[in-house]
């Protein structure tokens, strides 16, 4: 007992880990919250509107210029939205299967948070990687395995809601995930075939993937794999034009039709977290991770270099999240059968062909 107490509670390493975990969760949550703001603002700009520009707090409004800027930019809006979700009446409909109904939002959000453990964000001057779980060799495999579990939340939500639209949404979501996972895995395989060397034992690590992109980014070497992966992360994150489980025009709200208040908020955060994870994966695998420019691997030395690298990663992330939003307000939703056809009859054959071509290329090149 005393040993457990010493190991778990009093050990400084435990606090260090907990603090790091908390920091990343807070950062992810705020990125998710502010990507909602980005979504609202960007959609407003695209549609010739202004977007949220009223929400403020008396104390913030009192600050001379910053207060006005924060209000006009809508920066207080996510906090107001979050508070609204928190304080709304948390209704429990009579016709739902209660245990799974309550469990589903947690099941949807948890994989998003767990997958984040493996994300590397940058490199410290001493060569250590800024991540929650350093030194894991299986990086990308783990992330795919875990982030695909997110669909269990959707399936559970659709089933437990005990009503037809959520059920249809859940069925579509599951089918879509299975269809696109294959093409996604094959496109990733192509890239890892190129970068991983037999001598290394961390073949599937995202860190070695980023290091392999010093000089030239993968997106220039593997454009087809990049395109397939890009389409697949849109499908995986259930974003337009592949938002099959939600498709609000034909399924009301899809899997979250019967949800409200904070439980709906959890689904919301989960969706945006999947966006963040998908974008991060694309950046790490194809856009050079924390390298600043394609042919300029590092600028400066030591702390400056790592700070610039960190900034480069987050700027790329922000740009990619904007791209998600931009595509959403451009491309209309595909019909369900079109989604299936694109997945099975277009993306999968192209991914296989792409893999075989690279395979032969490396085989003959030696």
């Amino acid at each position, binding site marked *: 007992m005393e040993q457990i107490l010493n190991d778990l509670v009093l050990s400084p390493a435990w606090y260090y880990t907990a603090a790091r975990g908390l920091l990343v969760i807070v950062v992810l949550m705020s990125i998710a919250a502010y990507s909602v703001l980005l979504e609202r603002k960007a959609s*407003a*700009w695209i549609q*010739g*509107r202004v977007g949220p520009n009223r929400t403020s707090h008396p104390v913030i409004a009192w600050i001379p210029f910053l207060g006005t800027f924060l209000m006009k930019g809508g920066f207080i809006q996510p906090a107001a939205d979050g508070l609204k979700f928190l304080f709304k009446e948390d209704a429990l409909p009579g016709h739902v299967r209660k245990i799974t109904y309550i469990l589903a939002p947690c099941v949807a959000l948890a994989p998003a948070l767990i997958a984040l453990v493996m994300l590397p964000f940058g490199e410290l001057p001493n060569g250590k990687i800024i991540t929650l779980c350093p030194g894991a060799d299986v990086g990308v495999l783990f992330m795919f395995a875990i982030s695909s579990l997110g669909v269990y939340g959707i399936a559970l939500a659709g089933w437990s809601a005990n009503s037809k639209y959520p059920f249809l949404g859940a069925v579509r979501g599951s089918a879509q995930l299975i269809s696109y996972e294959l093409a996604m895995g094959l496109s990733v395989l192509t890239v890892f075939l190129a970068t991983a060397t037999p001598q290394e034992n961390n073949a599937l690590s995202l860190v070695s993937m980023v290091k392999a992109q010093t000089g030239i980014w993968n997106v220039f070497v593997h454009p087809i794999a990049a395109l397939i992966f890009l389409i697949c992360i849109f499908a995986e994150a259930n974003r337009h034009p592949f938002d099959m489980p939600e498709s609000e025009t034909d399924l009301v709200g899809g899997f979250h039709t019967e949800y409200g208040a904070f439980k709906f908020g959890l689904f919301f955060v989960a969706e945006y977290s999947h966006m963040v994870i998908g974008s991060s994966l694309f950046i790490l695998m194809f856009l050079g991770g924390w390298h600043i420019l394609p042919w300029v691997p590092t600028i400066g030395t030591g702390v400056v270099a790592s700070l610039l690298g960190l900034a480069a990663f987050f700027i790329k992330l922000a740009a990619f999240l904007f791209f998600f939003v*931009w*595509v959403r*307000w*451009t491309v209309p939703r595909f019909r369900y059968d079109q989604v299936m056809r694109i997945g099975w009859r277009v993306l999968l054959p192209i991914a296989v062909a792409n893999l075989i071509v690279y395979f032969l290329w490396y085989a003959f090149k030696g």
Partner: protein
Amino acid sequence: MAIKVVQRRPLSLAERTYLPQILAGLKVTWDNLRRPPVTLQYPDERPTIPQGYRGVPTLVRDPHGREKCVSCQLCEFVCPPKAIRITPGEISETAENTHVEKAPKEFEINMLRCIYCGLCQEVCPEEAIWLQNQYSMTGRTREEMVNNKAKLYELGGTLPDSHYKWDKKKAEAEKQKHAHH
């Protein structure tokens, strides 16, 4: 007439991949994004009301301050949703405009019924009822949403008059009277 055959060519490979169309669409939305917003920040900025706008119906006076309505009740009869209710009244013998003979004792327009069709303005032989530029009408009770005579004249104010119908009639009558004597 010559028959024109419409070419129905199959989609090209580039078209079937969707990608050029998606890129073109992204360009369209990007161009839209860079345009300034068209939103009016409503309570802070008010729209400019164009000429001939059909807002809240009001009663107007002529430039001499005479109330133009003679309570003929045409507007009440023509009003499709039956929003207007007029109680006709006599003008007293001693008043200066006694030759007009009638004026409304009470004039009520129920704005919960009004559909802003403008038929009352169209039918009015005296040009006394006008749909003017007030576009927002609020109240906390149903009673508040009924505009009475005082409110209607307050909203309407004075409009320029090119006829002075009753002044002319009075002048005509006096001329006739002098001619007979």
